[in-house]
Every structure is written in structure tokens, then in C-alpha cells.
């Protein structure tokens, strides 16, 4: 692929701005590295090889994540994980994983362009999400580091608890992103998290 092709994030045209009242934030974290990893969890040799590459253990407990210096491993299923890293890491990450997994039955797929992360932060975060998500996301049951795959306003979403602000990262498929963003903006408006209308058009 030519490097002259401009990259576009799923929400590239939508500039979420900090709320004027500073009681919340809604913005996209574009161009992160998303790598889907599938592997037999019983293959301890492969898991320790991956540990050496990633610097973190793959989480085996459902709905949990493990975070290293520059990478988060997110549980997606008993044999499936999402690796989330900073922009531009997919090439080396995938090469390193493929080398580490040589001879093992595993799958490593770069899905960076297929989904994006929307971050919602502020005291009204849980109220905003509760309008379209049945899960209890209170930090007593969904503490920082927890994750959940569920439906948000009927769109499939992966939710990550980031901190106690609370801050939730919402990972959605690319084609769902404008819809989910519009829904979040609409839901957020009633809770004082105001996004300038012009920016979201």
C-alpha cells in the first residue's frame, strides 16, 4: 500500500471536543493497533512464548484484561484475545507473535482498520451508557481493568473500564462507529456532557 494514501479514522470527520462545562469528555482514540489472537488456552508453551513477546500474561479469567507497559491484552473468549497497543505497532507485534507461535496452532490477525475506540469519561459516564446497555458498570462490579462484550444501543461493543472517573473505552466496529458516536452524543446531552453540535455534524 502506498504511503501517500491518507489514513482516515472511522470518526475522522467528527471532532469530539471537551465539554464546555468540563464535566466529561467524549473522543475517539484513533489508529490504535488492534490484533486478534486465537490460541488453545491449554497450550502453556505457546502462552509463555506470548508472555515473552508481550510482557504480559494473556488473561484467562473472563471479562478481564492485563496491561503491560505499552499493550493491553483483553479477554474475548476462552481461546480469543484482543491486543490493544499504540499506533503503528501491528507490523512488529504480528511478526514477533508469528515467530513465537511457530509450530503452534494459533491465529494472529491485524484488525486495526476494522474497529476503533471511543473514550467516554466523566461523572455521568455510567448514566450515559445505562440508556443503551443493560450491564452494571459500577466500579464495584466493573472495576478498572474489567472488560465486557455486550450490546450498546443494540450495536455490538466491547467495553473497557479504564479508571474510576469513571472512564470507559468503547470498542466498536468501524461501520457502527458513526451510529454509536451519534447515539452517545444524544445520550450524553441530557447529562451535561455537551458536545458542540457543529463538531458532531
Amino acid at each position, binding site marked *: 500500500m502506498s504511503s501517500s494514501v491518507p489514513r482516515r479514522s472511522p470518526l475522522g470527520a467528527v471532532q469530539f471536543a471537551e465539554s464546555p462545562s468540563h464535566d466529561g469528555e467524549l473522543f475517539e482514540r484513533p489508529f490504535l493497533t488492534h490484533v486478534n489472537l486465537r490460541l488453545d488456552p491449554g497450550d502453556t508453551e505457546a502462552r509463555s512464548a506470548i508472555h515473552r513477546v508481550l510482557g504480559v500474561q494473556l488473561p484467562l479469567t*473472563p*471479562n478481564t484484561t492485563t496491561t503491560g507497559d505499552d499493550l493491553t491484552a483483553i479477554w*474475548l*473468549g*476462552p481461546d*480469543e484475545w484482543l491486543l490493544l497497543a499504540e499506533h503503528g505497532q501491528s507490523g512488529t507485534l504480528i511478526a514477533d507473535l508469528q515467530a513465537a507461535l511457530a509450530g503452534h496452532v494459533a491465529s494472529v490477525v491485524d484488525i486495526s482498520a476494522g474497529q476503533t475506540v471511543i473514550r467516554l469519561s466523566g461523572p455521568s459516564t455510567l448514566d450515559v451508557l445505562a440508556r443503551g446497555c*443493560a*450491564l452494571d458498570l459500577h466500579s464495584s462490579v466493573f472495576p478498572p481493568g474489567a472488560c*465486557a*462484550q*455486550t*450490546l450498546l444501543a*443494540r450495536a*455490538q461493543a466491547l467495553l473497557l473500564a479504564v479508571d474510576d472517573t469513571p472512564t470507559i473505552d468503547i470498542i466498536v466496529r468501524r461501520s457502527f462507529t458513526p451510529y454509536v458516536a451519534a447515539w452517545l452524543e444524544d445520550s450524553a446531552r441530557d447529562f451535561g456532557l455537551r458536545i458542540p453540535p457543529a463538531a458532531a455534524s
Partner: protein
Amino acid sequence: MLLIPCPWCGPREDDEFTFGGEADFPRPAEPEALTDEQWADYLFMRDNRRGRHREQWCHTAGCRRWFIVERDTVTNEILGAGTYGGSP
């Protein structure tokens, strides 16, 4: 609304799941050896039990795994859930 206990993700709303019909319905080992009637029986015929029913569900919007739920078809009470090979 049913609250279905996914063996991995925990209890979730039934919106997140896909129903997969009666469980314990193994595919014939040699389909080519069956008569048309036996094959049709495997493909289409289910018991539609009243009461306790073991059935397959997939957590489509979650971990995307198939598992088994035991449900009372009269009261809709969920009696248990488990993985294939495990007991619901």
C-alpha cells in the same frame, strides 16, 4: 426477558444470545449411509418438549461461544447452563 447465564461471561440479557434449538443432537457419523428418511429426521425433527429442555444457545454479542442451557419451557425458568462436555 430471560437472564441467561453464559458459562464464560456470566448472566446476560437474552438480546445478546442466539437460540440454537434442542441440544444433544449429534451429527450422524456417516451421513452418506443414511436413508433420506433418517437424514430428514436428523435435519428437521425435534421433540418440542414440555417442561425441562436442554437446548443450545450462542452468546452472539459476547464471547460468541455455543453452550447448553437447561430451561423449563413452561415457566421459562433457567435451570442451569454449561459448556459442551460439562454438565449444565
